[in-house]
């Protein structure tokens, strides 16, 4: 491997990054994440939702194993917030590979909360419903938006239960029953589909979005225009949201987002150090040649 500072072998760079990521994870270091206004907006919208009969929050998990590292912590913290506030929610996905996550994420969070608060319990069908993978993308959304009774379009949940038999859907009518719509995705095009089609002429639910780091600049376009009301920016957004939950619910167990953000923070510093070192070395060697 070469060790000239302005031309370090890339394998050495990979090694440094690996160490930077693994060490904080292994030592379980949780640092306070940087505050994010976009995450605060997301948090405030959920805080303002009141549990009401015939109303629910709709979550859309359009991510799979590829972007699970970023979207999974985001969806976990939001699901935790909803469960703690007893706001009923339903989940679906336009992406087949998300199917196992639609069941495991709320069940996992509910189990964790039950351990924290043994006197309380969270029930499937009452606190949350898994609507499963729905084919059709924009066509499915258009059908949902047009119907006066969503139950007629949804028919059954992912477990085969009749939608009308679930307490969460008692009193639910059209999309006006959706108090907030939150989508977590890394896929190109799915956010635009939701933005364009998830609205009727009379009503558009506030849209919240959890994106991966790559799509942050594109997501900010919609946040600025007001088409989106809140945004979670990758793992950093999830960590910031987690910190807000800590403030609201003291004694809460720290989750993986702050742990991952600490590791990412160290990796960021390593990259910055390498870039600065490389520039310094290049500047010094160009000085010597002259």
């Amino acid at each position: 491997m070469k060790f000239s500072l302005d031309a370090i072998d890339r394998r050495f760079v990979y090694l440094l990054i690996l160490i930077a990521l693994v060490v904080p994870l292994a030592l379980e270091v949780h640092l306070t994440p940087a505050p994010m206004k976009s995450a605060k907006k997301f948090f405030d919208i959920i805080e303002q939702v009141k549990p009401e009969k015939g109303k629910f929050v709709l979550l859309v998990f359009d991510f799979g194993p590829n972007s699970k590292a970023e979207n999974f912590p985001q969806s976990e913290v939001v699901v935790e917030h909803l469960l703690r506030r007893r706001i009923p929610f339903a989940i679906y996905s336009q992406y087949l590979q998300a199917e196992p996550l639609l069941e495991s994420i709320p069940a996992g969070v509910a189990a964790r909360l039950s351990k924290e608060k043994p006197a309380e319990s969270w029930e499937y069908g009452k606190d949350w419903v898994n609507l499963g993978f729905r084919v059709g993308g924009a066509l499915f959304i258009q059908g949902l938006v047009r119907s006066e009774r969503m139950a007629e379009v949804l028919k059954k949940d992912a477990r085969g239960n009749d939608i009308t038999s679930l307490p969460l859907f008692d009193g639910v009518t059209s999309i006006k029953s959706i108090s907030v719509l939150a989508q977590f995705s890394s896929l190109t095009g799915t956010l635009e589909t939701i933005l364009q089609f998830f609205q009727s002429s009379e009503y558009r639910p506030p849209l919240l979005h959890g994106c991966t780091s790559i799509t942050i600049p594109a997501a900010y376009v919609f946040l600025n225009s007001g088409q989106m009301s809140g945004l979670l920016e990758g793992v950093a957004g999830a960590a910031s949201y987690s910190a807000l939950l800590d403030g609201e619910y003291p004694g809460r167990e720290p989750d993986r987002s702050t742990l991952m953000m600490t590791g990412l923070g160290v990796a960021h510093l390593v990259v910055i150090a390498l870039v600065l070192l490389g520039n310094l070395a290049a500047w010094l060697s160009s000085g010597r040649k002259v």
Partner: protein
Amino acid sequence: MGGFEHATPGILVLICLLIGPVLYYIRIARQGRDLYVRRIAGVDAIDEATGRSAELGRPISFSTGLTSITPALYACLGVLFYVARKAARYNSKLLVPQNDPQVVAVVEDTLRDAYRTEGKPELFDSRSVVFLSEDQFAFAAGYMGMVQREQVATAFLFGVFAAESLMLAEAGQQIGAMQVAASLTPEQVPYFICTCDYTLIGEELYGAAAYLTREPIQLGSLYGQDRAKLVFVILIVVGVGIATYNSFAAVYGMAPLPNITEWIRVTDWSFSAAG
């Protein structure tokens, strides 16, 4: 609130304002008038890149990424046609890894035409179009393996790319390939700039084929869309002006102007400022 599924009269007017100049300049170009197109370094480099491949005796790789059957694909095919003709002329091997099976058929047809136009149909090998996978990262893995095994001298990355863009470009970078990329989405541009020798940004991809071939239809189309874009720029400037005026009007108690976006969104052409 209207117009999200159906056109409003305002949108129809904007469509006419967009298409009108295009048709006009295509006609002008067909009449033989010379239309100026600014130099694009990345497009100039295509000749250099294909020549490099011929000198080194190593293959050329041309990937359209995750592009499906959309207008963007046709823009990429224009460049692919040009590159394929060069490859036929210099007897270079051309590899075209694919992500979408529908695109495989279209690309095969394009290559066959290119080789036939160059007068070397016998050199065309249908196995040069390699369908890898519809899955994003399986495609990336296949592409990376392919370029590293084949030791390509030149890699073209033209089209729609997502998170795998850096992997594709880094794979070529690691073997010292000359890389020219064209990304339609702004998110991937920084990755290509870091790893490729030349990068075309956004609509420069659409201009690339016109720039290379200098054909009247393509040049006229390019010229026309640039003129049409001026209309949108004027709308933006007027909209910003009105919004700025309205923010002062709210403070100083003056009468506000109607918001320009309402003119585009309303279905009944009433010019009220309310949404």
